[in-house]
């Protein structure tokens, strides 16, 4: 049954792609496939950062707001200092947001859910104030389109960015002590603390990562729309979380499936693309996202129930003696 956990999302992807291919053969044309990959890049990149966050036992609801803030910063700063410095500024701003998130959660001990909820509101508010509530236009700055229609080494830039981000996160996750510690914290935080891991610092780093990925998503999205305003990206956080969960990462933490996240994100984009080609309303895309999310986890849940004879609670109740039991109390 662990097969589902490891490979389930791949099977699902192939099945769905296959189903669409039967109905519209041109969906598997190289051109269209490339299209799908590019379309999925915004959510994919944000989902990469979110995978780290969920692996560490938390999550970040404010990525959509950071995305919007980035679009505003780009729109206002690039005309003044040019593309490179503009992108750099946006990156700095997003990192500040990440540090802010991290500090609130680690130093003020606010729960992640309400903390990132509040910062979501604050960041968006800042974006609104910064632009005076108006849209900022980037039509006059064709340079930014490199992030959407540009090509580098024959590949579309968004796709390249996705691959680079995932490669970097993968490297971080599997080949650095930081990645090890992130997984440790997500797996058993009290044990991580006892082991001397600097939990607070790492959590802040994780939020900086989610902010940076939100920034990259924002680069692509802003280039596509050529507009920046505070209303963008309202769906981003939940879509990213959905992709991460579908990809097999557990909400409980400790176990991240980066490849799964990527595939899940592409899967969701495929569904959108397919439904589009079929001429079906976008609403069904949401419907399928929701149903897939629930069904995928229902299978996981059923697996847990059937796999054990006792009820979930009995296992917890009857297990090896807890610390308190051996206390001299």
């Amino acid at each position, binding site marked *: 049954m662990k097969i589902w956990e490891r490979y389930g999302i791949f099977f699902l992807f192939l099945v769905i792609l296959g189903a669409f291919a039967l109905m519209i053969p041109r969906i598997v044309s190289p051109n269209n496939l490339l299209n799908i990959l590019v379309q999925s890049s915004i959510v994919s990149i944000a989902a990469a950062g979110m995978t780290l966050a969920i692996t560490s036992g938390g999550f970040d609801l404010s990525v959509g707001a950071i995305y919007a803030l980035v679009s505003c910063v780009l729109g206002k700063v690039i005309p003044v200092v040019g593309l490179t410095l503009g992108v750099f500024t946006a990156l700095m701003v997003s990192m500040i947001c990440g540090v802010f998130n991290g500090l609130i959660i680690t130093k003020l001990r606010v729960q992640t859910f309400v903390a990132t909820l509040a910062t*979501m509101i604050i960041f968006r508010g800042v974006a609104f104030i910064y632009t005076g509530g108006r849209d900022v236009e980037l039509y006059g700055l064709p340079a930014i389109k490199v992030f959407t229609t540009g090509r580098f080494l024959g590949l579309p830039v968004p796709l390249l960015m996705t691959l680079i981000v995932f490669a970097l996160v993968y490297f971080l996750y599997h080949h650095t002590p930081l990645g090890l510690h992130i997984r440790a914290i997500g797996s058993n935080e009290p044990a991580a603390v006892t082991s001397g891991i600097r939990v607070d610092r790492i959590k802040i780093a994780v939020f900086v990562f989610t902010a940076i990925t939100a920034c990259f998503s924002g680069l692509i999205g802003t280039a596509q729309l050529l507009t920046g305003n505070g209303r963008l990206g309202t769906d981003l956080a939940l879509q990213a979380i959905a992709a991460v969960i579908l990809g097999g990462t557990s909400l409980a933490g400790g176990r991240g499936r980066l490849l799964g996240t990527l595939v899940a994100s592409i899967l969701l984009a495929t569904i959108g693309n397919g439904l589009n080609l079929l001429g079906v309303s976008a609403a069904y895309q949401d419907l399928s996202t929701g149903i897939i999310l629930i069904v995928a986890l229902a299978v996981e*849940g059923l697996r847990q129930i059937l796999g054990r004879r006792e009820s979930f609670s009995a296992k917890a109740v009857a297990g090896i003696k807890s610390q308190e039991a051996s206390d001299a109390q």
Partner: protein
Amino acid sequence: MRSNESGRVRIDLRDRGILIALVLLAVVLALINHDFRKPVNMLNILREASFEGTAAVGMTLCIISGAFDLSIGSLLALLGMVTIGEMHALGLAPTILAILVLGFAAGSLNGILVSYLRIPAFITTLGMMYVYKALAQIYHGGVPQVATNAIFTKIGSGLFLGVPIPFIVFATCAVIGTVILRRTPLGRYIQAIGNSEKASLVAGVKLNRTRIITFGLVGLATAIAAILISSRMWSANSTMKSGNGGYEFNVIAAVVLGGTSLAGGKGSIFKTVVAAVFIAVLKNGMNLLRIEPYWQYVVTGIILLIAFSMNGLRAMLGRILPFRDTQRVI
């Protein structure tokens, strides 16, 4: 409120925190802005508070039981559209009844998925959020529904004995919710599950049934809110109330602001009501003071942040200043 242990005093202050904040805010605003003081304005505030407050009553019960529901925003939109959409054919009363039943059923579905399929509430309600969102766009092609029933539209905007009808509904829901929480076995079970699922199991509480009903009540409260809001707006569409972070987040924020912890186990509907009114007063005040809408956004966020970090702030202060701390839990 003094008692034996000195720690008690601080706890009570914290318990009344949101009420004090509300009173302070209202008094300050009343003093500096004469429009605020007008009775019409006060009634407006109460009316506005009701739209999120009603759903917050249900959400409070859910959060006390240790879960939360992210799907209510989309459910709201869907139910709002169906209400108006079907009213032509079915008439006012049957439609309203049907919507209430539908809301309860939708909520119960969440409960069933969480209880029997063991899917965490976060993901179940996230998934259902997408489903309802889709259904709202599919229903009549996602076209905004416009209300034509004269009586219906009075509900949201009308007064009854001088009090805005939505607020009467809100207050009634709050009272019923409190009665359920404090005076029925179901309410006890909800608190018990939030306190300790394991202890509840041992004590013989019917976990699944309680959870399903709790989620059902959330759906019911959302349905009521949907009726109120679509009546007030004379219309309903698939993205109503999705601004400012989303309806579900605003509702959850109101509950947490009122002091109910996301960890579950304790909470008070009264305090949720106070928090909902507080948020409405804040918005109203900022409007009257001609604070720009976008600054309002930031101010709201910062105030929420401060409120949520009360525990943490107090802990930080506690380390700097020597308070006698009677709350040592081993």
